[in-house]
């Protein structure tokens, strides 16, 4: 039996949201999420009603939720999914993405990293001897940009949520990395060679997004990416959630007040945006050098024999990965 009642209608609640000091039923949780997305879009001029939108989808809760919310709000949004070649994790993620699009009759573009570019994320990590998330992020940014430009889309939407942004901000602030702090904004305007990119979930937490998917009956990849296990981003999220538990609302105040109060003070300090860019000699993408980072990565790792996921994990991550395999995940 539940004791708590929905703040809006008084019916039994399904979730408590301490940062709002309130509980909500399913209907009013969805209403809260929609309103937060509408506010983000309106406050930051993210989307126009007739924009052609490309949603970068991974099969996880956030990207499927933002796609679902945008369609519900009446936007024209297609999806793009990249098969990153991270073993069974990628197969399952791709399956959830395809099922979501098929069930709703939505257009989904699919890119296969190994099939089309000759490498996958584990192999890139092994060959470059860098953390897997580095090659993964670089590949995704480049290919999402390219898919948007080639497809004539006005804007790329990503599923980055409040926890993601707060964790990135936390990491940047720990190092007082002014360049990165100046770049961290929920809207990146279009520039020559780059599409506009926006983050409509900037006001919603991971917990709220998972709840959206459960209430809406959206099946998504619940398991963590094996390559991300033990990364710094997760450690920052855990630290922020420890603070949030003691002081509800801290996480949103940390990030949303940064956007409102600090970002304007940092405007103009983003050297990358201000600097002169050349065209990549291989693919034509904007770059500060002669060849872009994506083409350099592809040059270095393309055609290399595939490396299994477990060969590029640290000890702790490998143990967790093998335990998950044994449990049949």
């Amino acid at each position, binding site marked *: 039996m539940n*004791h708590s009642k929905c703040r809006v209608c008084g019916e039994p609640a399904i979730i408590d949201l301490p940062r709002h000091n309130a509980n909500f039923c399913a209907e009013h949780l969805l209403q809260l999420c929609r309103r937060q997305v509408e506010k983000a879009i309106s406050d930051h001029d993210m989307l126009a009603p007739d924009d052609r939108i490309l949603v970068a989808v991974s099969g*996880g809760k956030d990207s499927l939720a933002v796609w679902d919310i945008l369609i519900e709000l009446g936007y024209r949004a297609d999806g793009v999914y990249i098969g990153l070649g991270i073993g069974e994790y990628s197969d399952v993620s791709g399956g959830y993405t395809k099922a979501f699009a098929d069930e709703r009759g939505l257009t989904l573009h699919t890119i296969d990293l190994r099939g089309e570019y000759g490498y996958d994320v584990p192999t890139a990590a092994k060959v470059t001897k860098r953390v897997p998330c580095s090659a993964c992020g670089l590949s995704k940014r480049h290919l999402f940009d390219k898919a948007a430009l080639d497809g004539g889309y006005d804007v790329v939407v990503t599923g980055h949520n409040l926890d993601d942004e707060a964790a990135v901000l936390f990491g940047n602030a720990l190092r007082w990395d002014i360049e990165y702090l100046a770049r961290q904004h929920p809207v990146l305007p279009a520039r020559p060679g780059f599409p506009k990119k926006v983050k409509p979930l900037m006001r919603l937490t991971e917990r709220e997004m998972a709840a959206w998917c459960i209430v809406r009956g959206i099946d998504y990849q619940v398991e*963590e990416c094996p390559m991300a296990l033990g990364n710094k981003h997760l450690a920052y*999220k855990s630290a922020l959630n420890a603070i949030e*538990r003691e002081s509800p609302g801290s996480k949103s105040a940390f990030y949303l007040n940064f956007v409102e109060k600090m970002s304007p003070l940092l405007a103009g300090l983003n050297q990358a945006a201000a600097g002169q860019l050349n065209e990549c000699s291989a693919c034509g993408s904007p770059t500060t050098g002669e060849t872009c980072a994506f083409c350099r990565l592809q040059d270095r790792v393309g055609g290399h024999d595939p490396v299994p996921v477990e060969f590029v994990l640290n000890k702790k991550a490998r143990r967790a990965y093998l335990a998950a395999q044994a449990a049949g995940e």
Partner: protein
Amino acid sequence: MIVRLRQPKREIEVDGHRTVNQLLDQLDMNRESFLVIRNGTLVPGDARLDAEDTVEIRPVISGG
């Protein structure tokens, strides 16, 4: 009650009844990082879980 956990997937048994928040505290899980689902439905922190319930504790944090 039977409690289904993730990462890795496993099941544990917990004796007696308690609230969702008491269960999460007992398992040293931060309420901010998990949702609890009973019979396909989310349940809030003060919901009472009974000995015969089967619940899933789903992590919501992702590292990508």
